[in-house]
């Protein structure tokens, strides 16, 4: 096959010592950036752009633009893996796409005392997701990105409704409390500039609030600070004591066994993540929520989700990593970036004097195949590094509560500040820390709030874009076979729990109806 020959050539490029060296640097930086909340993969890549210019220019012997892109992409791979570490260990999202890991990652690490297993499960599924996505990238890049173009607002809206449908009832003891949290999330998502009409919404005249309320500072507050306040009340009980003594190899075996028993979930989520990542403008974050929702939907033990279920880690993590890899596909094949981070890498290509798009495949074969091969190498390196780090990371959970708590607070504050160098984000984090504590006390579920806040904006935008294009006629959602299928699926999923509840109520109904008749 021609592709295999080209890929072999790509490995020749990617495995040159200088390229492996810079890949290693990129991956390590990416891991650090991923671990630090606030500083994201996107800004990490942007910070290194000037250095990549020097590399691409050939100032370093043996290095060229392929080395530069391998370095930048390496940061992305590192950040995709590393973002989960802070989520799992400290209940603070290290990256936007690891927000969903707060739902089950931290509970598994803390309440069940298995930080090593939580981390290893996430790394293993990241690796498999990335591997599947890279294989699809290698063999089907062009076909899939052509199809992705037909995926417009009606189809996307369907996917978002599907995400909401799979997440309904998440962590809920009372459906009303869930709905209240969902509504609060949607309300918060509505704050700021309305891109459809250009109107200002709920910003009370503030120009800083015009940019909207970011979900990262909110989740840092709700989960990170909120959790600390809640456990301070318990005087730190249950933080360290239950951490299992065994570290290392046994976690890997347990994670692999867990992976094997969830192989179809991981494979199908990775493929879905890949397709989602190829869609222009929708990166790993939305994919991770869809991945979590699907994992929960397939599962028989839905009530275990939110309490440290491994499917709640593996499902979203493989989807997110597959989407991350896939977001480079439309950049290479069409000159359209698939995610914010790939948009920065694309900016790099411009600055180095390369034109992103289909001609790259023809005019710069070495570059494209070197990059593709480096995705395999990069993920392998990242995976190994992460596995080696697990015992050290898991040890952090044994640091006494009195020492670790101030540290987490400081990391939370610095993290939310460094998002946009904005003090407003810091106050949002603190306010939502208090709100998070109160919501915990009142037994309101946090997950629906976060889901609505993360997906609310995009869902609204795609809904309104569809309706504008369809001149106000909701028939547009059923105008193409693809969107019809997605919409019907979403509606069925939405109505299914409702139907089940009604049926559950109907069964004892005849008796009670008869009683009522008697009473009348």
């Amino acid at each position: 096959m021609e592709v295999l020959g080209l890929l072999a050539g790509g490995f020749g490029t990617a495995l040159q010592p200088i390229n492996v060296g810079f890949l290693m640097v990129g991956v390590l930086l990416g891991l650090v950036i991923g671990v630090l909340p606030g500083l994201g993969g996107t800004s990490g890549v942007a910070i290194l752009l000037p250095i990549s210019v020097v590399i691409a220019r050939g100032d370093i012997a043996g290095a060229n633009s392929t080395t530069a892109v391998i370095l930048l992409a390496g940061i992305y791979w590192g950040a995709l893996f590393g973002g989960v570490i802070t989520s799992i260990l400290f209940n603070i999202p290290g990256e936007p796409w690891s927000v969903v890991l707060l739902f089950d990652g931290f509970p598994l690490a803390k309440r069940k005392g298995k930080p090593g297993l939580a981390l290893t499960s996430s790394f293993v599924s990241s690796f498999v997701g990335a591997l599947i996505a890279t294989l699809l990238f290698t063999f089907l890049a062009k076909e899939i990105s052509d199809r992705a173009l037909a995926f417009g607002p009606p189809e996307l809206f369907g996917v978002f409704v599907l995400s909401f449908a799979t997440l309904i009832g998440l962590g809920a003891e009372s459906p009303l409390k869930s709905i209240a949290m969902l509504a609060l999330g949607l309300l918060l998502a509505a704050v700021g500039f309305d891109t459809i009409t250009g109107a200002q919404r709920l910003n009370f005249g503030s120009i800083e609030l015009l940019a909207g309320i970011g979900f990262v500072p909110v989740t840092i507050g709700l989960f990170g600070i909120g959790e600390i306040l809640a456990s301070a009340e318990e005087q730190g009980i249950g933080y360290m004591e239950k951490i299992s003594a065994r570290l290392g190899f046994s976690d890997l075996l347990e994670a692999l066994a867990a992976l094997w028993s969830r192989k179809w979930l991981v494979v199908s989520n990775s493929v879905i993540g890949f397709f989602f990542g190829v869609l222009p403008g929708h990166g790993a974050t939305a994919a991770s929520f869809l991945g979590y929702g699907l994992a929960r939907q397939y599962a028989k033990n839905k009530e275990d989700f939110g309490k440290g279920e491994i499917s709640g880690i593996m499902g979203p993590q493989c989807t997110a990593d597959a989407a991350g890899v896939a977001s480079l596909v439309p950049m290479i094949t069409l000159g359209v970036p698939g995610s914010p981070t790939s948009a920065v890498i694309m900016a790099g290509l411009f600055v180095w004097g390369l034109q992103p798009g289909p001609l790259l495949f023809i005019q710069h074969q070495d570059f494209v195949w070197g990059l593709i091969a480096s995705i395999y190498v990069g993920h392998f390196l990242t995976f190994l590094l992460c596995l080696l780090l697990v015992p050290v990371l898991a040890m952090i959970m044994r640091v006494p509560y009195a020492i670790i708590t101030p540290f987490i607070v400081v990391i939370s504050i610095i993290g939310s500040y460094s998002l946009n160098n904005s003090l407003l984000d810091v106050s949002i984090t603190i306010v939502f820390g208090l709100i998070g504590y109160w919501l915990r006390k009142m037994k309101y579920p946090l997950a629906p709030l976060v889901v609505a806040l993360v997906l609310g904006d995009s869902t609204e935008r795609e809904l309104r874009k569809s309706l504008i294009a369809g001149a106000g006629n909701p028939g547009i959602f059923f105008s193409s076979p693809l969107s019809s299928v997605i919409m019907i699926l979403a509606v069925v999923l939405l109505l299914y729990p409702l139907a089940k509840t009604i049926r559950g109520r109907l069964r004892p109904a005849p008796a009670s109806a008869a009683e009522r008749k008697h009473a009348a």
Partner: protein
Amino acid sequence: MTLRSTRVLSLLAAGMLVAVACGGGGGGTPASSQPAAASGTTQPTGVAAISPTRPVEFVISTAPGGGSDIYARFMQGVIEKQKLSPQPVQPVNKEGASGAVAFTYVFEKRGDMHYIMITLNSFFTTIITQKLPYKATDFTPIANLALDPFFLWVNEDSPWKTAPDFVKAAQDKSIVVAGTGSKQEDEALFRRIQSTANTKPFTFVPQTSGATVAAALAGHQGGVDATVNNPSEGIGLYQATPRKLRPLCAFTPDSPAAGAYKGLATCKSQGLDITDYYIMRAVMAPPSLSAGQQKFWVDVFKGVFDSADWKKFMDDNALDPKFLSGADFTKFIADYQKLHEDIAAKNNWVQ
């Protein structure tokens, strides 16, 4: 509960704003001037250039990877490579609210030359439609480095082969078109086409970036049949095999003379008489910079403009290299301010 928490939040936000504004004021540059440093100036003028004394923030109003971001980072690369500034110039993204966050940030740095900003037409449209408490003409103009033309694009499978085909179709029924943002440059141009060619009102679907606009057209997403993408935004899908997008004409006085779009008809030659609308790729500074401070930045960006790297970048992306500074640039800004005020008034964009 919700309302109250939002109110507390906004109060907090207001407090923070005040704190930030006060803090920013203290960090200004001392008025005493440094001797004119390595600015490599060639223009003999009466004023001596004043150099920055600490690192400079190059504020970008879009997210990393957006249109302006690419330009700013490219310029910053040239400044570094050619050592045009004695102090480092650091790109900083202040995205959000179609530029309003960045504009306000720079506006509040009155008189401080350690902040410069890359701007495009949202510098006019956003300030006008959001009724921000200042105008584009309040800022210190540095230079314009390029004019990014607009093309009229259709999908490769479209029956419209020329601009008259498109205009005729648009006069019969409302065509679904896409563009970046709402009440921004793409919509402004479509509204001008509407009144110039007397078409039915276009159904305008706002997108988040130029790249997603091009993708929406290539996939007929939600029935989108035309766009006014810039040449660089459409080039990937234009060069794809099979070709996905086709430019019908260019809104420029002359056809492109070189590059991938060589020989593309002008819209004017096809009866659609709009030749004066471009996206500016310009650098602005906070209000009230001294003449010497302004001169330093004009010299720096003249250096960027004259570099071979910039020339290649212009050619690769079918941009019109056009350097404007001083009185010419001030007039350009005033003209564009007027043009956008007129469009906003005509289409009832300011409520």
